């Protein structure tokens, strides 16, 4: 991305299609309308874009699509705020602004040759899907793939078809957890972190990718450390109030870090001293 657009103005992006995932979640598939910008656009799994609705405002949303196909960008939106409620009402052909990509993504170079342990909670699966796609496209470069996803209510479980398809792949373990199951729920009842004790784990040959609510991420990171994974092999994707995306506006600060620029993906070794402290 050229630095000229780092702080805006954004590019125009068109909604190609939308998927309604659950009652409050939808995925927008976007395409930059400018052919040159579209051809030049690249992202790394774990990075995010700022989506901008004129007259309303902007929000940071992680890129949940295949990095091999950067011409078509998927963003999964939970309608909880002023801007996301407008984004969730968009339909095919609507135009918005897009700036990005921003931040440090998942450590996929470090992960080469290693087992991947993906631990996500709720919508936290969205920022990791691009990394899973990346690893599956280079399946021989990675060891065992463990994918754990937890939801509060069974009804919150989305992308079921993806998880079912991943579960069919060789050398891949998929486990799902629901705190509040329904009658159809067949996997673990309880927290996703419970599953860490049930999976085959090679602590010296694994990289963990964690994303979800902070209490869940803290519990997962601490459990993985207890299971013998070193803190530089455990990576977490954080969420803060990103506005500028380049470490200027100050909203995303976590102690010394500008999460938008230095993260949003951090190794546990960098943030364990501060993450979980109320107010940071």
């Amino acid at each position, binding site marked *: 991305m050229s630095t000229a657009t780092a702080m*805006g103005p954004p590019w125009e992006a068109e909604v190609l299609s939308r998927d309604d995932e659950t009652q409050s979640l939808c995925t927008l598939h976007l395409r930059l309308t400018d052919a040159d910008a579209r051809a030049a656009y690249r992202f790394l799994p774990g990075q995010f874009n700022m989506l901008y609705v*004129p*007259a309303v*405002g*902007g929000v940071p949303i992680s890129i949940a699509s295949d990095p091999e196909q950067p011409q078509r960008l998927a963003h999964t939106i939970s309608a*909880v705020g002023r801007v996301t409620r407008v984004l969730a009402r968009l339909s095919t052909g609507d*135009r918005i*602004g897009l700036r990005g990509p921003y931040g440090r993504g998942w450590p996929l170079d470090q992960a080469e040759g290693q087992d991947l342990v993906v631990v996500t909670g709720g919508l936290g699966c969205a920022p990791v899907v691009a990394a899973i796609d990346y690893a599956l496209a280079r399946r021989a470069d990675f060891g065992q793939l463990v994918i754990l996803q937890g939801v509060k209510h069974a009804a919150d479980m989305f992308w079921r078809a993806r998880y079912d398809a991943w579960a069919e792949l060789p050398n891949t373990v998929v486990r799902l957890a629901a705190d509040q199951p329904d009658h159809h729920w067949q996997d673990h009842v309880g927290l996703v972190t419970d599953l860490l004790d049930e999976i085959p784990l090679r602590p010296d040959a694994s990289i963990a990718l964690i994303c979800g609510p902070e209490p869940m991420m803290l519990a997962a990171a601490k459990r993985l450390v207890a299971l013998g994974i070193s803190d530089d092999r455990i990576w977490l994707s954080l969420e803060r109030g990103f506005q500028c995306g380049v470490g200027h506006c*100050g909203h995303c600060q976590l102690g010394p870090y500008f999460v938008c620029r230095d993260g949003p993906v951090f190794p546990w070794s960098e943030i364990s001293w501060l993450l979980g402290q109320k107010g940071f």
Partner: protein
Amino acid sequence: MTATHFLPRQHLQTLLDQLDALGYRCIGPQVRDGTIVFDRLSDATALPVGIGAHQTPGRYRLEHQDHPRCFAWANGPQALKPLLFAPQERLWRTERDDAGRLSFTSEPQPMQRQAIIGVRACDLAALALQDAHFAGPRADPGYSRRRRDLLLVGVECGQPANTCFCASTGDGPAISTGADLALTELDTGFLVRAASEVGSALCDALPLRAPSDEERAQGAAEIEQARLRQCRSLPGRNLRESLFANLDHPRWDEVATRCLACGNCVAVCPTCFCSTEREQPSIDGSSSTHLRLWDSCFSAEHSYVHGRLLRPDTRTRYRQWLTHKLGGWHDQYGRSGCVGCGRCIAWCPVGIDLTAETNAICADASESAQEAP
């Protein structure tokens, strides 16, 4: 060593005229609304002649004094910050056509290069910190545009306020770096040092003479006195470890009972850099202007993350401000984010003193500092 010259007081106007002739728009300190602010300056008589500024925690009053000096006050509520990091900046404008297509434009405002007269050492240190933040690898276009060709005439501070502690942070009152010209004010005129090529060229065009030994000695003595007269200090120049080791100190609760979370300290701080983005839509919805405004970590909205507030109370907001200012800055930009100007103390409506809070919270750092040789 840079040569020191002397500019007789009656020729101060010549400095302004020279800057004007070189195409600079001059900005200088003037009395306005009971305080001293930086504004357009073309006439040296508009400077605050014979004015002092009495500052204590929560209080700022100007007073008339019987002397010819124009810079016999420590500072006003502004530093250089509003002149470079604009309080409100237009980032881009969006137009939507009838087919729903969007077009984005950002039109940089053409601007005349500026010269600022009367800059203090603390504010030069703050400028260097703002440069590190805004003019780094992903430079802010608006800041960079205003920063380019900026000429700075510093004046060393001979009259520190009761709230000043620049000697403690190591940023004043003498000017060591960052200015094109550094002035030291005496009753009869100014000791002048050029500190850049532009400053040297400017000196060549001024009716300067060599200073007497007495004038040199008096200038040095006044600045040394200004250093010694400061009565506040921080317990160290790097309090990062101490602050983050004391996140549960009871003083955070105590200061939160006094702090109004009004954000005055942030507004007057010369290094606070937070901003927020806002929309200004046209009434018919066909266009919208995207603005950036100063923000404060004391507001609820500052810590809003996807439906929740990370810092729901004043305790966590004050702690965020202080641990960032005196702690996080070390990691981010290699030094503390405080330059000892004392504005946050004077302009706090309830007179909270950052140095007192820090000394209470970092008492362990003070003790270890005292033990050190």
